[in-house]
């Protein structure tokens, strides 16, 4: 009995201490919305890890605004748009000063407008649709490049370096991101003088691509490459099944292919001749990149899974940078400071909001997969 009373007091004492401590320096809350389960998880889970790592490093070096800690509240929205809206409301009700999240446009569109309505900034770590800032409003900020840039980059690469003239385009018809990626790819590839010989479609969650592959095999004129607009869940599956059907044409894609699944699912023997455009960081010697990779390995015991980990890290970095500049977490000042971001040295490249579209002008990396190994082949820089 005595022990119970003692225990109760100990707990009470701890609660009191904790409350006092937190009153002294109230944490700065950031709502991090990510799909930690479901089809988007292999993109979104690393992003949240990156975001949490950035917050941890900032807190270890003394926090922001004179010792206030950054608190990243991670919310799993299950690759489900309804859960996404609920998650956004939950984050807002917790009094976050800014939101961040998602590696995909569809989910940003289900959450960011709710932040916009309250005038609270939302920074997407990995959604790449170039019209996001236009659709959502002035509280929407992008960490990555736009889909137009990455599609143009891989189209240029396919035409100039792979010498592809005839391509087949496969599109995941269930996502805004994949549809936009295909649109920009086709646009650029045709401008360059290439030809799209066949277009085919599938849905996120499809496992069996045998019917589409048979059609790809029968396509005429014979395609030199197939552009697959997919998210990671289908990336490895499509590569595996295309190669197993005995087709050896080049497979090109965007950052949805930036996942280890592209090499592990087909295995090193079949993961060949795959090229994708992605965020610059892989094999990059810049000091930000080296420091990030080292910190990530130390924290999680493995190298960053893909480019979405540094993007999550950069998203929190952007917000922290703006809070420092604004000197406050008040939403109007914070939004203005974010919009005025110039030359922020992120792991995934330098970020400045100079374009009228609000999309940062960032370099695009072209990564090639050979025998299951990823190599940085070239860096593409947008013209304007």
């Amino acid at each position: 009995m005595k022990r119970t009373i003692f225990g109760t007091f100990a707990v009470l004492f701890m609660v009191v201490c904790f409350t006092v401590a937190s009153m002294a320096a109230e944490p700065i809350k950031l709502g991090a919305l990510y799909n930690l389960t479901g089809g988007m998880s292999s993109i979104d889970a690393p992003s949240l890890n990156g975001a949490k790592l950035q917050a941890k490093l900032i807190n270890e070096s003394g926090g922001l605004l004179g010792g206030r800690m950054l608190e990243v509240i991670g919310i799993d929205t299950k690759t489900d748009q309804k859960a996404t809206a609920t998650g956004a409301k939950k984050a807002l009700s917790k009094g976050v000063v800014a939101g961040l999240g998602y590696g995909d446009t569809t989910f940003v569109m289900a959450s960011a407008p709710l932040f916009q309505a309250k005038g609270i900034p939302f920074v997407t770590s990995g959604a790449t649709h170039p019209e996001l800032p236009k659709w959502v409003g002035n509280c929407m900020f992008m960490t990555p490049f736009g889909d137009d840039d990455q599609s143009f980059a891989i189209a240029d690469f396919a035409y100039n370096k792979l010498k592809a003239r005839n391509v087949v385009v496969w599109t995941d018809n269930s996502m805004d991101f994949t549809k936009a990626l295909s649109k920009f790819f086709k646009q650029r590839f045709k401008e360059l003088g290439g030809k799209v010989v066949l277009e085919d479609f599938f849905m996120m969650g499809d496992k069996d691509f045998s019917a589409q592959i048979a059609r790809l095999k029968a396509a005429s004129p014979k395609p030199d490459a197939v552009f697959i607009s997919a998210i990671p869940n289908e990336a490895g599956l499509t590569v595996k099944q295309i190669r197993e059907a005995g087709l050896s044409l080049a497979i090109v894609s965007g950052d949805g292919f930036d996942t280890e699944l592209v090499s592990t699912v087909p295995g090193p023997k079949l993961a060949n001749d795959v090229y994708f455009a992605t965020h610059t960081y892989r094999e990059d010697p810049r000091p930000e990149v080296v420091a990030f990779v080292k910190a990530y390995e130390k924290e999680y015991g493995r190298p960053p899974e893909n480019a979405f980990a540094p993007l999550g890290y950069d998203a929190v970095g952007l917000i922290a940078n703006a809070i420092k500049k604004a000197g406050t977490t008040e939403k109007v000042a914070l939004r203005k400071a974010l919009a005025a971001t110039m030359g922020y040295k992120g792991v995934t490249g330098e970020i400045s909001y100079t374009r009228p579209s609000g999309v940062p002008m960032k370099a695009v990396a072209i990564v090639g997969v050979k025998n299951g190994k990823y190599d940085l082949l070239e860096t593409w820089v947008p013209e304007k």
Partner: protein
Amino acid sequence: MDGYIAQQLLNGLILGSMYALVAIGFTMIYGIIRLINFAHGDIVMIGAFMTLGLVISGKISFPVIIILVFIGGALMGILIERVAFRPMRGAPQVTGFITSLAISILLQNLGILLLTAQPRNFFCPDYLQTIYHLGPVSLRAIDLGIVVTAVVLMIFLVLLVRFTRLGMAMRATAENLNVARLMGININRTIMLAFAIGSGLAGVAGMMWGGKYGQIDPLLGFVPGLKAFVAAVIGGVGSIPGAMLGAYLLGFGEVLFVGLLPPIYSSYRDAFVFTTLIMILLVLPNGLLGGKTEDKA
């Protein structure tokens, strides 16, 4: 072009066999206790992860793994039956249905907790990955394995139900649980064995699924579970050859829908599947091979 059609038909056959492997276990359980077991797909998932674990853990040969996975799936089925379904024997049909949904969600979330939701790659021995080119068509050893396993298991099950004592007991239990009990049939044992065989098959199906697609995650059971349900309903729930037939119709239907229509319709294959289901149920409410069943609920 003929090669194209041949390849698509082969694709349909392989996909249909994959569905059949899941559907025959599903329909077996339904046939005996009229339970629509939505957790069936999740046993497929467990089978896939069990295979992965066994492959990683050591040099166990693949045929031995098949047996181990069958036993593992069977034990899982027995456990579920004992814990969740036996206590509510005699309750209305809908109770069992809802319980099975609960088990399904439980297994999926347990999977996410223990294994994380990240998809992971599946290992498969090289000889199963060999690609054969037969004239204009190509297929892999694992595809052949799937087709053969599905057909062999179906024949085995039909024989089991028709010609063994256990099969007779199963049919009696299916016909009327209480009368079967009065006749001295140990219905608990019979139902448990039905669950064991059905779930064991689901485990093997999971192994094939992993081998075929090379990527598995804790939520993978949902789609095969649903497709097996559709296949079983099309074929006439409770009929093993019917489930097989339904699965093949579904496999061919899906592939030919994508393969023969203009590509723009490719993304609507699941819509096609469920529309077909509704149409068949409108014309033949008991499915293609389903006899008249008397609904006791």
